[in-house]
């Protein structure tokens, strides 16, 4: 073994080999990669479902599938994308891969629990798939499982609910692990305000995961009890209240939006200083605005229910709080732009993704305010406008954040470089396709195109066709991007330890990192974004 190590040092990818060494490893980096492969697979399959739905809508009337199939498809698309891809996505993949390294630790606080969460996640994901193909019909309730339909539908709703419950439990345990890791395992000298901002965003995220997920857990259990035991909490015939379900559901599911977006914000906060070679502008406001978003985001759930029957006062209250969340988000956007201002900007693929993140997130954010205002919300509620809005936030925000992250840390994870030109081309196709696909939906939504319909009035023909063309382009972009990454993960040029001249800890160790991350735990004496150039002084 020593002969081998003298030429190529062992790293976490090759220090042990064989499938079992991966499936049983409690190394945070390997677990991160397991999540990564799982999540990308699920993402691609759900993206295909999305593409099929768009093809159905290329012309009015039935094109390639029946209404029932369409209902099952958007349900499966939603369940996979939300519960399996977007909620765990960045935290479980890049949180696991990078968090311990960035705070100078050898692993997370509870490595075995981490592996256990992965298997819970995997089990939940399999169960979600099984619910589609088991006897009976695939669930057709939409990912929100609204009662009374979810309590009465004859499809496999209980299986899908159990899957969501299991995935939620995995998410709780990951959040718990990260909170304890950040509290107890930072390297000596790394005070809270010397911690990089990606860990800060993971910290805020983890608290939401921990405190909001149990509420949806018990809510899903109540729907299961509703279906199997007929307890009737949400059934008006027995004295229950269907709107109560919506409250309980959104008490979790709105904060869950911040579980999706906060880590993406953290990723781009790492990327801007590195590719501007300049300290991040407003470190403390960025760190604290993550916590502010997490805190205020907890109290805005009612804005999903402006049309469901709520008092005037509560609509007023939730609308106001919704507007307040925009403030910390805007602080971040301001800080990212200011970080680039006057820096030596190097327009590499990660930065392209990060800049388009700002662009798409801002559109998504502003349309979010349109939805947060009671009067306009009543006009566009349950239309394509809402669908366009949350795809701009979730796909344009979290999705592009994810792509930014993989292009940023790819050399560190695999020790290889991808092809820059192809990455740029992939980004261009993806970005064009994205806007062609979703922007027309804003317009059609305002014109009254309802969401979740497989058919439409012929007057929407033009917009729908543009949207479908956008979907095809987007898909080509995805394939371009992914094939570039897959090919170069094995065949790319060897990456140096620090290809982007980053200054956070992960760039100070070899690529790929050794199994134990650090030979010696580093001692931190300065803030995270100190660059060796005039800006630092």
């Amino acid at each position, binding site marked *: *073994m*020593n002969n081998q*190590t*003298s030429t190529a*040092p*062992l*790293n976490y990818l090759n*220090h042990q080999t064989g499938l079992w060494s991966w499936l049983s490893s*409690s190394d945070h980096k390997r677990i991160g990669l397991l999540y990564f492969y799982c999540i990308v697979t699920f993402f691609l399959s759900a993206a295909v479902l999305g593409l099929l739905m768009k093809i159905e809508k290329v012309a009015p009337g039935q094109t390639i599938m029946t209404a029932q199939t369409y209902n099952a498809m958007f349900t499966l698309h939603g369940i996979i994308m939300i519960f399996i891809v977007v909620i765990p996505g960045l935290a479980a993949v890049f949180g696991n891969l990078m968090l311990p390294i960035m705070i100078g630790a*050898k*692993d997370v*606080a*509870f*490595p*075995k*629990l981490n592996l256990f969460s992965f298997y819970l996640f995997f089990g939940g994901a399999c169960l979600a798939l099984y619910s589609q193909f088991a006897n009976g019909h695939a669930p057709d309730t939409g990912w929100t499982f609204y009662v009374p339909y979810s309590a009465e539908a004859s499809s496999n709703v209980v299986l899908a609910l159990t899957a969501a419950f299991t995935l939620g439990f995995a998410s*709780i345990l990951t959040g*718990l*692990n990260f*909170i*304890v890791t950040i*509290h*107890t*395992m930072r390297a000596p000298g790394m005070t809270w305000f010397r911690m990089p901002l990606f860990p800060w965003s993971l910290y805020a995220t983890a608290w939401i995961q*921990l*405190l*909001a*997920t*149990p*509420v949806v*857990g*018990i*809510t899903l*259990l*109540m729907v299961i*009890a509703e279906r199997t*035991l*007929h*307890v*009737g*909490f949400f059934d008006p015939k*027995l*004295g*229950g*209240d269907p709107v*109560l379900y919506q*409250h*309980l559901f959104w008490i979790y599911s709105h904060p869950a939006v911040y579980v999706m977006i906060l880590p993406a914000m953290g990723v781009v906060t790492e990327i801007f200083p590195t590719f501007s070679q300049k300290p991040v502008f407003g470190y403390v406001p960025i760190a604290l605005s993550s916590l502010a978003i997490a805190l205020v985001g907890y109290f805005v759930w009612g804005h999903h229910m402006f049309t469901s029957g709520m008092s005037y006062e509560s609509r007023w209250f939730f609308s106001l709080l919704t507007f307040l969340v925009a403030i910390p988000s805007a602080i971040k956007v301001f800080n990212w732009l200011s970080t680039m201002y006057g820096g030596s900007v190097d327009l590499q693929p990660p930065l392209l993704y990060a800049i388009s993140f700002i662009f798409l997130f801002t559109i998504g954010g502003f349309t979010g305010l349109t939805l947060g205002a009671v009067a306009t919300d009543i006009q566009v509620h349950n239309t394509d406008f809402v669908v366009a809005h949350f795809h701009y936030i979730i796909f344009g925000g979290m999705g592009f954040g994810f792509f930014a992250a993989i292009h940023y840390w790819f050399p560190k994870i695999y020790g290889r470089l991808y092809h820059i030109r192809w990455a740029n081309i992939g980004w261009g196709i993806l970005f064009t396709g994205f806007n062609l696909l979703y922007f027309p939906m804003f317009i059609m939504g305002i014109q009254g195109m309802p969401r979740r319909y497989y058919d439409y009035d012929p007057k929407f023909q033009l917009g729908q066709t543009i949207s479908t063309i956008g979907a095809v382009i987007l898909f080509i972009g995805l394939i371009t991007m992914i094939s570039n990454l897959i090919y170069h993960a094995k065949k790319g040029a060897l990456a140096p330890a620090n290809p982007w001249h980053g200054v956070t800890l992960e760039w100070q160790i*070899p690529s790929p990192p*050794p*199994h*134990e991350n650090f*030979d010696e735990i580093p001692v931190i004496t300065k803030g995270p974004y100190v660059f060796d150039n005039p800006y630092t002084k």
Partner: protein
Amino acid sequence: MSTTEHNSHNAHSEHSEYIDSDTGKMGMWLFLFTEIFLFGGLFIVYAVMRSKYGEDFHQAALELNAFIGATNTVVLLVSSMTVAMSLTAIQKDQKNLAIGLIFFTILLAGVFLVNKYFEYGHKFSLNLYPGSDVMRNLPHGEIMFFGLYFLMTGLHLFHVVVGGILLTIIIFKIKSGRINKEHFLLHENGALYWHLVDLIWIFLFPLLYLIT
């Protein structure tokens, strides 16, 4: 970049047998928060339904036997005390006393389960369970009350059983010496969990039994 040190990854697994006590306890506390939030969802439903059907809740609660409820409260309170005493015993290196006290705790958990069995059995003999014909014809508020009664106490019961299993594991680990005077993290966390089971009952008891 040194090459020899990479072979030392075994050091990692040697450490993991005992997690640092502060770290482990913090993890447990956070987990207990999530448990409270889990029950919190049910407490919200309870609050909404009771404010809507106050009178029906009063009527339905008359069906519950406050004596058995009170007995179970005392049983759980005492068991919380014995599990805390067992932790002090292990810290003082009194292995047998610790095992005896945990055993007594599990015994009390058993008493709780037996009482619960009679309570549930009584309800079932009256056909008072969710989905039954008798239940369907009750006033709406009473349906809600019994639904909540079964779901809340049922979920709590599940926690009692899990706690009992955890305590049994702790007994075996004390016997094998893996829990000892220096390393009692699992014991401490098990006791914390048991206190949570007790705490939740402290809230369930008045909310369900004492509102007549």
